[in-house]
């Protein structure tokens, strides 16, 4: 079954690739000389014309533009002309140099990254060499981290190398990179996309990034994680669209060793439907997962059989001054390296759903009663695990003020209840523009943490910011906790400075200490270890 599945996928990939590369249409003219002679003849052969004059005569028949420069009509025609010109090689890039010295881990490191982008006609490419790890206490080897070459031609797009993609809401496949969190589950391999009218097909084959820097995988020496899949989407009409996908994933099991290699082999099949009518939207996705290694699976998944399945439902209504979104999710045994699932939770420190065991529902109300740029948000979410049916409840309310002549403020309050720990958090953010050049900001945060069987601790965070236009920024962050941490500290202070001499250069300097804590971005959270020391960075775009 599995080999047939993979063979069908590989065959489909070949079918997709062949016409894309062999029958690519060529609609550019041969050279700039050819264009120039064409323009020269059709514009009456006047000598001594400038390029602008020739374009004007060729496309515009001498009509004068008395409006602002550049004349918009001429601009459009100029743009058309550029598209017909032979391709040129354009390139750009970015370099990042970093230094950090962390007293806690004892790690001092110099890091560097080079990213290059190139573009030539229908082709473009990206390369990245890097040893940067955002966390000061962790080191990466210097390596060829990303490389990608992409070909586009009308309805076709083919990518070879590193790529990410999201199918539906990501239950089966959701691959992306977050540099801030050092999170990356993108694949390396090939992705082919074809779109024609209401239909779209995407086929992928790949494996995970070479993580030789991952000690566990390196020691095991058996780190291959492979994915092969296909997805089709069809827009039935303006309101309704449907999608379906089939994916095969193979990766080492959690008990994988050199002596006893264990490869898991999953097949996922599922579909989704999306409906939109006026101010109402609805989305539903269902995925099933069939495990190829039943012995292993049965030891861990002893609820409702050994295979996985997932449901996700999202409905929304968008009224005149408010919107309401409701979500429901039920994930069971769906964890694999190339997916990440909608978490439902909105409080930052808990914004990750367990793909193997998660049942939850939630809602978000956004309300704009004054129509002055201010708005309220209310959210509620509850979820639990089948294995451990203790609910996680969270309630959040926030208000974003309008802008009063350069002054604005935001207040947010969260209450989070779990069996062993409760959080009660309030955060106030203030910003004031003092003049055209100078502005200040302040953030105050208070969080009560109730740990089961322990006295309540209260944490405070205060931050002061100053900015001089875009060029210079300074901030001071102070954090204090009522409960001492394992390293015996209860206060942390860190200074940060930024200098942007222009949009292509950035200097960053920070020193002080920072408490261990979650860093969250885009629904992914990583625990950042405590830091005490110095960080410096120079970033250069070109």
């Amino acid at each position, binding site marked *: 079954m599995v080999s047939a599945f993979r063979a069908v996928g590989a065959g489909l990939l070949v079918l997709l690739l062949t016409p894309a590369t062999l029958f690519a249409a060529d609609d550019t003219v041969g050279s700039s000389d050819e264009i120039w002679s064409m323009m020269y003849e059709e514009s009456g052969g006047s000598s001594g014309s400038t390029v602008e004059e020739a374009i004007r005569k060729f496309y515009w028949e001498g009509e004068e533009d008395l409006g*602002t420069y*550049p004349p*918009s009509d001429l601009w459009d025609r*100029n*743009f058309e002309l550029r598209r017909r010109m032979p391709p040129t090689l354009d390139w*750009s*890039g*970015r*370099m990042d140099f970093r230094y950090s010295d962390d007293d806690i881990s004892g790690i001092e490191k110099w890091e*560097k990254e*080079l990213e290059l*982008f190139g*573009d030539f006609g229908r082709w*473009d490419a990206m390369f990245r*060499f890097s040893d940067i790890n955002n966390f000061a206490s962790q080191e990466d080897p*210097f390596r*060829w981290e990303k490389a990608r070459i992409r070909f586009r031609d009308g309805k076709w797009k083919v990518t070879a190398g590193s790529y990410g*993609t*999201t199918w539906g809401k*990501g239950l089966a496949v*959701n691959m*992306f990179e977050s540099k*801030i969190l050092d999170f990356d589950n993108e694949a390396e391999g090939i992705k082919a996309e074809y*779109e024609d009218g209401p239909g779209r097909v995407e086929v992928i084959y790949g494996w995970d990034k070479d993580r030789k820097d991952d000690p566990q995988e390196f020691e095991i020496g058996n780190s291959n994680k492979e994915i092969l899949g296909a997805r089709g989407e069809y*827009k039935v009409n303006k309101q309704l669209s449907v999608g379906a996908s089939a994916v095969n994933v193979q990766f080492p099991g959690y008990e994988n060793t050199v002596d006893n290699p264990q490869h898991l082999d999953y097949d996922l099949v599922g579909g989704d439907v999306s409906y*939109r009518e006026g101010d109402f939207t609805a989305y539903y996705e269902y995925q099933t997962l069939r495990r190829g290694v039943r012995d292993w699976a049965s030891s861990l998944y002893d609820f409702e059989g050994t295979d996985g399945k997932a449901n996700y439902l*999202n409905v929304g209504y*968008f009224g005149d001054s408010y*919107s309401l*979104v409701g979500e429901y999710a039920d994930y069971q045994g769906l964890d694999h390296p190339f997916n*990440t*699932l*909608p*978490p439902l939770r909105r409080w*930052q420190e808990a914004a990750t759903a367990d793909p193997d065991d998660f049942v939850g529902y939630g809602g*978000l109300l*956004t*309300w*704009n009663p004054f129509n002055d*740029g201010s*708005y309220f948000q209310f959210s509620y979410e509850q979820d639990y695990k089948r294995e451990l049916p203790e609910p996680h409840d969270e309630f959040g309310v926030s208000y974003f003020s309008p*802008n009063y002549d350069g002054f604005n403020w935001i207040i947010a309050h969260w209450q989070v209840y779990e069996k062993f720990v409760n959080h009660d958090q309030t955060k106030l953010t203030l910003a004031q*523009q003092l003049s*055209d*050049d100078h502005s200040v*900001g302040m953030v105050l945060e208070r969080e009560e943490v109730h740990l089961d069987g322990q006295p309540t601790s209260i944490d405070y965070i205060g931050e002061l910011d100053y*900015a*001089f*236009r*875009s060029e210079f920024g300074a901030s001071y962050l102070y954090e204090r906790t009522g409960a001492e941490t394992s390293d015996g500290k209860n206060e942390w202070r860190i200074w940060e400075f930024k200098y942007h001499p*222009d*949009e*292509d*250069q950035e200097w960053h300097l920070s020193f002080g200490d920072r408490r261990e804590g979650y860093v969250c*971005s*885009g629904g*992914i959270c990583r625990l950042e270890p405590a830091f005490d020391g110095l960080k410096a960075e120079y970033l*250069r*775009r*070109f």
Partner: protein
Amino acid sequence: MIRLFATLLMVMVLLFAGSAMAKPAPEFELDDLEGDTYSLDDLVEEHDVVLIDFWEVGCIPCNKLLVYLNEYYDELKDDGLGMYIISRDTSLTESGVEPFFKTNKYPWKVLRDGDQEVSKDYGVKASPATFIIVDGEIVYQHYGYSNGQEEEIYEAIKGALAGEDLGELEERK
């Protein structure tokens, strides 16, 4: 070998790379919230000056900047300014995108970059990031936002509408 090659390349680039030049804007095709597809070509053909703003749910600096961009858009849309949001939200936070823009009645098309491929092409690692594109070329870029920086963006938009090049826009700062 790769390490040596990359290090040499970085040194060369650092020594010789120029900065004050317009760069071609990476092509893209993205769906908006209604499922309609937009390409960069479409946007550039429709507007003299295109501003694209990379945005994320829950990004407070992004939302602060939008308040100002809304004012600028109201003032300058008739002069040829087109503005588009590129949401960097993956499917994990996507459910908050449409409520935010619909409830706040922002007039722009919101294009979804769920796998962040376009963000990567534009070198965007965090939101917000603002690009002004004229005739398919990036004439101005601004990464991040803190109070007071909106003035610079406003000047850049006006400069781009007046046909100034990147060097002139830099001098306006």
